[in-house]
């Protein structure tokens, strides 16, 4: 109990980051399903979009926990600058910087989402692809900065996140290629 109390801030920060990554992965997967225009019998587009947004909002909540709680770590105090300026923190500088860049990019993309109706659709769509960079930076940050990365459960989690996103992207690429192929555009017999 003493160990838990002593490390509660650090444990909370780590758990917040891990859950945020899982939610970000769920958000990316739902986004890929939307972009791939998958026709799901029981899941119309508006339903998938709603889940996509909810997962994104939930990810924000846990990113907030992850970041804010670090301000209260007494032994390894992170200043506001450490948490906002890439390269400022002395703790695993590059890995921490990756997390900060991911957070700031995600913030910029969230603002772009709010302005979606005012932006040209193609511009919004292209900027939205940067969410893949956010996800990649986030998982890199987790692996390199997380003190649990060597454990079996963390390896399994990172592996599952990476495999699911890689699989979804591969499906999306194949679906796009099929749509572009002449046989798909003109089915035989018509």
């Amino acid at each position, binding site marked *: 109990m003493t160990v838990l109390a002593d490390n509660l801030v650090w444990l909370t920060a780590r758990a917040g980051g891990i859950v945020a990554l*899982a*939610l970000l992965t769920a958000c990316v997967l739902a986004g890929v399903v939307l972009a791939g225009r998958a026709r799901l019998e029981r899941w119309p587009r508006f339903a998938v979009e709603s889940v996509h947004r909810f997962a994104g909002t939930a990810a924000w909540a846990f990113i907030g926990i992850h970041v804010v709680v670090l301000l209260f770590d007494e*032994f390894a105090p992170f200043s506001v600058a450490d948490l906002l300026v890439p390269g400022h923190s002395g703790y695993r500088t590059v890995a921490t910087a990756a997390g900060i860049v991911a957070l700031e990019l995600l913030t910029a993309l969230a603002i772009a989402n709010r302005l979606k109706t005012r932006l040209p659709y193609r511009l919004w769509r292209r900027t939205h692809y940067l969410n893949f960079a956010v996800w990649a930076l986030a998982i890199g940050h987790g692996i390199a900065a997380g003190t*649990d990365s060597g454990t079996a459960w963390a390896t399994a989690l990172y592996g599952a996140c990476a495999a699911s996103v890689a699989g979804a992207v591969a499906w999306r690429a194949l679906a796009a290629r099929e749509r572009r192929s002449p046989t798909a555009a003109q089915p035989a017999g018509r």
Partner: protein
Amino acid sequence: MAGKETRIEAARRRVRTARWTIAIAALVGFGGAVGLAQQAGGGSTAASPSSSAGAEGDATLVVDDTAGADDVEVSDDFFGEAQATAAASSASAPTARTSVS
């Protein structure tokens, strides 16, 4: 038309279920991650940078016990590697290192 509304309503229900599932899974996952992270510390504070012994291995305290050294600087970085470095006042002074793991 009624069939379409039923399908839409069913999809809305699924969305609500999915949202609750995500929220509960996130909270349960959060609690589980705290527990797993605590276990990863091996029953000690090893996995936290807040501890003096880091997750990356044994902390090593190196004392440059140099005769004539008058300026000893101890640093303890986030990785838990405790290092004590003595700056010798004389480069030619005999050196004896004590390593405490």
